[in-house]
Structure formats: C-alpha cells, structure tokens
C-alpha cells in the first residue's frame, strides 16, 4: 500500500449528496479482474452514454479535472454496498483523498484499506471548499496527514480527526494483518477459552460441506 503523507492537487467538486456505490461502479464491472483497470468503470453511467461513448461534459472529462487527485463531495459519499470495487475505481483513477461531511457505512474503512484517505470536515466547510472550486476551477487543495490539516485554495486551514492507529497505518502504508499478528497471544487465549466454553462454535459439523 502506498503511504500517504502530504498531497497538493487539483480537486473536483461533486455537489450531489449520497453518491452511492452503484454510481461509483455499476455492478456489472465487478466481475472483471483488477488488472483491466477499474478507473475505466468509475462513474460509468454518468461518464458514458448507452453506446459507450464518452460524455464530454462530465466533470472528470473536462480540463483541469482530468488530473484531479482529490474529490470534494456532498454528505454520505459512497453509501450503499460493501463493494470494494467502488474504492478501486477511485484509486485507479489516481485519486488519493476524498473530503466529505460524511461517508457511507463501508466506504471509509474500505478506503483506509487501500490507501485512499477519507477526510471528514463539517458540512459548512466542505460546502465552502466546493464553492471555491466552482468559482476557480482547477484550484488546488493541500492535505497534510501528519498535522491533520486541509488547506483550501484561499489559504484557510481546516483541522480533521483521524484515529491514531489509522493514521499510523496510512503514513507507513501498513496492512492490518501485520498489526493483528502482534496480538497473537491474546488471540490464542481467546480461542482456547471459546472452544472450551462453547464447543459448538468451532463448527466442526460444517466439515460435511467441504469439497473433497
């Protein structure tokens, strides 16, 4: 996973609230291997017409947004399904951070797992950022993870919260399993107690469903 420290980049404003996972990537592309490039499926139904032709007026097809690496969106971004393809499509497009007043239930945790930084700021601040981007298309935003700040095009700074453990993992590009392995003793003790006290939870009878 690519570490995240500081990013200064063009940001795209999306005013629509509740941009859902079906908008981010339609279900029919979720059977493709990652190697085909999930960026091609991002916002597919908004970006391409029924014949598969690019809609030139879609914001990501216009300069200067083609090289955007930050999304600034309405509330509840990425609501809907658990599909991680909705994160792969965004990261494969080159985006490293999404700033929103809130995220869908799975989107933020899926983002952390893939090096995409979800930044939550108050609704009024996110709205102000979007307005600045509309009035000055191509304006850059800086996100500094060590100091937990977002700097808008006008120089205004906004502080954001992030759990220390998430921050550590993003800064170092660490995967969760390597952290969990440090807790192996606790895991062993937990499982020993569980297997003794609630033996049916070991699910041995499910062996009949294992393919020979």
């Amino acid at each position, binding site marked *: 996973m690519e570490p995240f420290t500081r990013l200064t980049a063009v940001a795209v404003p999306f005013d629509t*609230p509740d941009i859902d996972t079906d908008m981010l990537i339609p279900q029919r592309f979720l059977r493709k291997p990652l190697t085909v490039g999930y960026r091609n499926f991002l916002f597919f139904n908004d970006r391409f017409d029924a014949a598969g032709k690019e809609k030139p007026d879609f914001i990501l097809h216009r300069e200067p947004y083609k090289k955007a690496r930050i999304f600034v969106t309405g509330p509840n971004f990425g609501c809907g*399904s658990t599909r991680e393809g909705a994160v792969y499509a965004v990261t494969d497009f080159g985006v490293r951070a999404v700033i929103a007043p809130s995220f869908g239930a799975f989107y933020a*945790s899926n983002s952390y797992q893939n090096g995409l930084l979800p930044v939550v700021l108050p609704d009024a601040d996110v709205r102000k950022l979007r307005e600045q981007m509309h009035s000055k298309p191509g304006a850059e935003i800086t996100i500094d993870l060590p100091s937990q700040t977002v700097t808008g095009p006008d120089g205004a700074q906004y502080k954001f919260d992030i759990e220390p453990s998430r921050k550590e993992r993003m800064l170092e590009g660490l995967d969760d*399993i390597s*952290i*969990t392995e440090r807790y192996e003793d606790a895991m062993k003790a937990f499982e020993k107690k569980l297997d003794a006290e609630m033996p049916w939870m070991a699910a041995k009878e499910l062996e009949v469903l294992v393919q020979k």
Partner: protein
Amino acid sequence: MNKPRNMFDKIWDRHVVAQRDDGEALIYVDRNFVHEGPFYAFDKLRLAKRAMRRPLKQIAISDHYLPTLNRAGGLAGIKDAEIRNMVEQLQRNARDFKLPFIGMEDTERQGIMHVVGPDLGLVQPGMVITAADSHTTTNGALGAFSFGIGASEIKHVMATQALWYRKPKTLRVTIDGKLGAGITAKDVILAIIAKIGISGGNGHVIEYAGAVMRAMTMEQRMTVCNMSIEAAARAGLVAPDDTTYKFLEGREFAPRGAQWDQALKIWQSLPSDADAKFDKEVALNGSDIAPMVTWGTVPDDALPITGRVPDPAQAASKEERVHLERALQYMGLTAGMPISEIKVDRVFIGSCTNARFEDLVAAAHVAKGRKVVVPSMISPGSTEVKRRAEAAGLDKIFVAAGFEWRDSACSMCVGSNGDFPAPGESCASTSPRNFENRQGRGVRTHLVSPAMAVAAAVTGKLTDVRTLK
C-alpha cells in the same frame, strides 16, 4: 450491582480480543459468509501467502451470479463467460482453502446467503457475523451482531478470524402499538427509514424493540433488520425470545442436546437489561404505519401509497433540492403527482429482503384469482423455500396469475446474474435498494412489500393493496 447493559454491549463485551487505547478493538468473528463478489480477498491471501486461520468458521455460498433459469444445465448452461467464471471461481477458491461450500449443485441447501444462513441454523444469537455484503444485517433478527465489510477486511477475517473495529453507538427504535390490516414488515422498515433518513443510523447499531417487533415472526424480523443498512446503520438487532428459539431448534447446524441447553442459557442472558441506556432513541406507533413505497432513488424517498411525489421547490436545503430534481428526472415523475398514479412496467418478487416462505404466502394471497398485466417474476429466497412453496401449491397460484416462477438467486435485485429489466423500465420490486441504475441501466426501482408488488403487477401501477377489488 453491575451497570445495566444493552444487548449490543453484551455481545460486544464477549468478543473483544484486545482493546487499544485509541478506541479500536480487535473483535472475534464467529462466522464469515462469502459469496462470489469478494474474490479479491482470496487473490490477496494468495499474493500475501497467508493461510486461512479457521476454515470451518467461513462459509461460501453461491447466490449473486447463479442463473434463475435452466439450473439443470449446470455451469455449462451459463452462457456469459464472465458470469460463469464468477460461479466457478468461488467453488475453486472454497475447494483450495477448504471452506464449507454451498453451490448450484447443492439443490438441498442453495439460496441467498441471508436466507440460507438463518434457515440452516448457521446464525445464532450472540454471534459476531461478517460478510462482504451490506445486507448481512439481516442476521440481526436472531440477535447476532452481523454486518457487511469490504474485501480487504474479508481477507483480514480469513487470515486472523478477527477484525479491527471501533465500537459503534446504539440506537433503539421502539415500535409500539399494533400494525393495521395488510401492513407488513417491509412497510415498518420503510417507515423507519423515512423517519430517521438514509444517514439516520450512521455509526449506530439499531436495536428494534416494542410490541410490534415482539409480535413479528422471525422472517418478518429479518425483513426489518435486512434494511438497517439503508439507514446507514452498522447493524440491526432484535432481542432473542421464544420465537427465536423455536425457530432455531432442530435446524441442521444449530447446537443439539446438552449443547443446545448450554447455548440457550447464554442466549437468554443477551436481551438488554431493563435500565440499559442507548445513545439515541426513536419511537414509532405501529398503528400510524401505512403501506409504503419508494418514489425516488434513495431508500428514504419513501412515502405512504396515499401520498404525493415531493416538490423540489419546497426542499429544506440546497442539497435536498439538487437530490429531488435529479431523482424526479431519473424516475420520470412530476412533482405533486399522486404516488398511486405511478405506472410500472415490470414486477420482481425476490431478494434477501422479501423472498421467504411467508412473503410468498402473502403474495399468493393477493395473486389468487387475479392476472398480472405487466411482466412479473418470482425468485424464491432458497431452493428450500421454493420446495415449501410448491408443496403448499403456491407456484400454481402464481403461474395461473401469469407470474414467472424461477429458481433462487439474488437475481433482479442487483442483476449480477444478468436478470435485468429493460433500460428505462419502472420496476416494482421487493428488494432493499432503489439507487439509480441499481437494477440495470436507467431502470426505475420502486421498493414495495410482496403484497404491494402483486397489487402493482395486477394493475400496472403502484396500488394500495387495501383498495384492490
């Protein structure tokens, strides 16, 4: 005396393996369900050369990509190579990692994972259950903390049998009173979502309580918990009671004999203590709930069938106005028109929300002696549900009414198996989600209960089932 705890606190406390100072906990996962979707998790495990810690605590079930027609044709009968690959890939991954597996050929057990899990006794009160599927919340009906996670977290669960999680807050939704005639669990959850909003459960686990919940059957509780995620809740819970225990006893993978007695004692200790606190409380009166439908493109665009389509000019905020305008345009509706004048081109009865035996009984009750006027299909929630329905003669009622009677899969709820309405069609659907393009490109979804779906099928428009002649 110990501090009173709510049910979620009790389940949580039993599963914390390690607690970090920053609030994140490593919680133990009792059962992890896998469908064809999160194949990335297996690929990532292989890439990292990691083993599966407890294979028997996983279960792979094929549901999203199975065809609903020509099942006898087997794998070779699936024409689309990519869809066939998804089905084969899950079977292969399950074999390679020695996971319990229920696929197309298991004609005894196959079905939608959120139907099969409870029906086989794989879901038990007090468990922590994960799956790469947002509607994993269904299992909360049995008093399990059950929630969706992404493919990377699935990989983590497979490798470690645990998950890093920040303890969610709790919201108790109490529905007291009594439901009116013809009002179903689907109407109850749509009314709850309309009340608290599509983000109303964000960061919370909902415990559904009150007289209406207590009176519900297990299948009805599953419909309610299923759509918890449509209000952005992490999970839904219903306290286990005699209805729960009666439902579970004797199921294929439920504990038996002395272990049943031991389990029962633990389960009976789970319901919230009398003075337990919740972070938030919401109350609804059951007798106020009317048959609900969604007119728009998010689940909280839900209104009683007697209502009118909202007007963007009366929106409370700019965001709401933007949403209403886009939704009206997408759905092809006019502000202010009566909901009961919305035409439908197609009807789908199926999905993890509303394709259980009782749902089919309710649908058949309305379908009996009537004829559909638009293409309408039924995909039962599992092969077992299909068998039971046929044994009760329901299939004959549906076929006589003009419904297509198909096999069990996620089907037209999400279309991953290729079951799509035609582009631009309006579809009255018993499924849980009505986003733009969810059921296929340009398809306009109206979420309804099974009885209301039949009412729409026989009239060609959204119709109050109570007024059917």
